[in-house]
């Protein structure tokens, strides 16, 4: 007889409903899986065989055919173990057929029949619900994470035996729920005090802090250039503490990505802080943009709605940097594979830090730069090209003098003060962009840029003057307008005036650094 069991497959961060059809019929003992199964699913045959056996059921010594439909969707992941095992139990009539009708199954089996946590339970559960199936059997360990989906009946289970029990006796579900939700209900962390690094630790650097507030408020990409030890890394690592709050939708979106990457901690299932990722420059291409045989989001997707920090930027390989271009433009990444394209969101704020030259001291009167002119020219090449056109704010970070390091930090703002400015500007943007499809000033382009970033007449005059005297590129114009919009938002001004333009013009270290 044939059984039908529901489960789901991931495609990017969305999930599709999959039906597992299992047929047990006369023939030589065999277990075949058809319907574009990924490598992990083909391996699942063995896990399933042993797990079913260890449940005390003898695996049918007959011909078992498993069909995953729709056949043209590629299926990846270890969560197919459970639905396939349940399918066999169904086909052997060990569980009642009607118990499978309104329920989907997700889970990986270990050989002893216990259920292990899976990746991507959040988007999978969401996809299943979207297809009208409300009951979902999941590994107990994934309970908290899956609970983020509203409107599903979750049935947590610790083993295949428990699953088969609950299918035969639906009342057992309550007991399971009680058993595993108490087990999982460790108190979530206290919400405040979550950022251990505060800008108060950074003495002076008022100019840099101001620039970082602007960057965070409008989610503008920012570059920091300065001598070694000037505090670039220190400043950047405090950025998470001043980023604007995420909306619930943004949090869910980020959580889905982390769920697929298997990076959700059971204690904190909802990602409620904007991500801050700082990959090392030795990272592989797949690690950076995503990929692998079972498509896994890369650092750029793990930075979605948050910050991607590339410290020592010129150390990254040009080919890796080249791959950032598409996501910087479109806010997502497509990964091409034989079975089709996968898309992951990748709308992040790029923060880069760099020394002015390889030895670090180009332009520093206190040290000798040991680079040759051709080395400097080569280094400088890292700061050209389309990637850098997308960096709205370019900041020079000067070292704070030793005697000033030791003075009282009172004057320089702390993270709380900075966060307040960011939130104010964030609110203005939320109202401005409601329904327009963009969230931050950094996304302003084309007609929206014209609509929201027309400066006052004296602002316009200053901008024109700047193009003549500062030799700015035409592309710089949009950058400066976007940044001055954010500055005006921070200051609570409706129109962009000359003061905002003037300040925006000051953040152009890369243009200046290597001129002449």
């Amino acid at each position, binding site marked *: 007889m044939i059984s039908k069991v529901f489960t789901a497959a991931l495609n990017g961060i969305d999930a599709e409903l999959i039906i597992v059809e299992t047929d047990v019929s006369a023939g030589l003992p065999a277990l075949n899986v058809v319907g574009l199964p990924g490598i992990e699913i083909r391996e699942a045959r063995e896990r399933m065989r042993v797990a079913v056996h260890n449940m005390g059921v003898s695996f049918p010594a007959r011909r078992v055919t498993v069909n995953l439909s729709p056949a043209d969707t590629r299926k990846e992941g270890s969560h197919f173990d459970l639905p396939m095992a349940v399918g066999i139990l169904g086909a052997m009539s060990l569980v009642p057929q009607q118990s499978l009708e309104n329920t989907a199954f997700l889970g990986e089996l270990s050989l002893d029949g216990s259920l292990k946590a899976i990746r991507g339970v959040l988007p999978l559960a969401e996809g299943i619900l979207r297809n009208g199936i409300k009951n979902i059997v999941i590994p107990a360990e994934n309970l908290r994470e899956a609970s983020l989906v509203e409107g599903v009946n979750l049935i947590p289970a610790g083993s295949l035996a428990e699953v088969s029990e609950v299918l035969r006796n639906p009342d057992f579900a309550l007991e399971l729920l009680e058993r595993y939700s108490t087990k999982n209900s460790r108190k979530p962390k206290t919400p405040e005090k979550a950022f251990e690094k505060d800008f108060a630790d950074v003495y*002076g*650097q*008022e*100019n840099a*802090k*101001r620039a970082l507030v*602007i960057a965070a408020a409008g989610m503008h990409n920012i570059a920091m250039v*300065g001598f070694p030890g000037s505090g670039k890394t220190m400043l950047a690592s405090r950025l998470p503490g001043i980023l604007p709050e995420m909306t619930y939708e943004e949090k869910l979106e980020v959580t889905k990505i982390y769920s697929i990457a298997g990076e959700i901690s059971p204690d904190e299932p909802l990602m409620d802080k904007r991500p801050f990722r700082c990959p090392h420059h030795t990272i592989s291409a797949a690690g950076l943009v995503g990929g692998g045989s079972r498509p896994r989001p890369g650092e750029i997707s793990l930075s979605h709605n948050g910050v991607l920090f590339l410290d020592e930027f010129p150390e990254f390989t040009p080919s890796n940097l080249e791959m950032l271009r598409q996501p910087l433009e479109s806010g997502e990444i497509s990964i091409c594979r034989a079975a089709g394209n996968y898309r992951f969101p990748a709308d992040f704020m790029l923060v880069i830090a760099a020394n*002015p030259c390889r030895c670090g001291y180009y*332009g*520093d*009167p*206190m*040290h*000798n*730069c040991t680079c040759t*002119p*051709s080395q400097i020219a080569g280094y400088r090449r890292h700061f050209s090209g389309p990637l850098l056109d997308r960096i709205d704010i370019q900041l*020079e*970070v*000067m070292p*704070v003098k030793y005697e000033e390091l030791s003075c009282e930090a009172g*004057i320089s703002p702390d993270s709380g003060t900075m966060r307040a400015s960011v939130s104010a500007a964030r609110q203005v943007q939320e109202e401005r962009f409601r329904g327009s499809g963009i969230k931050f000033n950094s996304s302003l382009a084309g007609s929206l840029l014209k609509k929201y970033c027309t400066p006052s007449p004296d602002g316009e005059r*200053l901008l024109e*003057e*700047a193009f003549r*005297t*500062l030799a700015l590129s035409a592309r710089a114009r949009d950058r400066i307008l976007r940044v001055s919009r954010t*500055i005006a938002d921070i*200051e609570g001004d409706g129109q962009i005036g000359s*003061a*905002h*333009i*003037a*300040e925006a*013009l*000051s*953040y152009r*270290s890369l243009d*200046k*650094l290597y001129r*002449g």
Partner: protein
Amino acid sequence: MVHDTKYAGTKKELINTEIINNEVNYIDAADERFPDSLRMIEDPPRGLYYVGNIQLLKTPSASVVGSRKATEYGKWVSKSIGTRLGTEGVTVISGLAVGIDSYAHMGALKAEGKTIAVLGGGINVACPAPNRNLMREIIYADGLVISEYEPGVTPSRFTFPRRNRIISGLSSATVVVEAGFGSGSLITAEYAAKQGKNVYAVPGNITSQASLGCNKLIYDGAIPLIVIEDILNEFNIEIKKSQGFSKKLGHDELTVCEYVANSGETDIDHICVGTGMSPGKASGIVTVLEMKGVICTGMGKIFIAK
């Protein structure tokens, strides 16, 4: 005249090494266009290969030299001196090297003044692209490129120092803008002193590697260049008070301007502390002042440009 017609109307791009090769002219020391100033130095060149306006050899001139590796401050000073000399009709002589030399030439060109580049090898010998572009610009601007070496001679550790005697020999005074220890510009200063010319050195921070050579020159008796106009004394040029700028500045701009003038060199954070302005406002004002040409910025440092 040769230089006028040959390059008039040609596209910049056309002047590259091959063309220069075809158009390199020569005068020997007996030629009436050969300047007395060069005849009188020890070991005078036998003649000069040149491209451009040979008449410039007899104009009042000063050399502006320094290290290849220059700080923002050094570049700015060099360019400012070049501009000032150019404005006053004094020809700026230098060695076309990257760093201080290039900025001196560029300063003169900015003022639409005259400038001479003295090379340490054959005029047609390939040099890095930025220098080549600058050479083109000099020739276009009715300037002059000279060398005692015939076309094809590659510059060497030996030719560069010898070339310096021509730089100092041609000019009435030599300014060293920035020189670390061992910089070739110190050799130029030495030649100038031996040739009886005044040597000026731009003073730098005692902590600045890039100014060690200059500060040492001052210790050894060179004239410190306290303000850029000092160099004009050599040419009996009356110093006109720069005027009108302050009038055009707003109140806040004046405040920032005064603070920068009093500090010599500063940065945004110090301006904020010194004037009580917010960093954003101070950054904006500094940018506007830079556009008005009142101050200069580089690598986070801010200084006065007048």
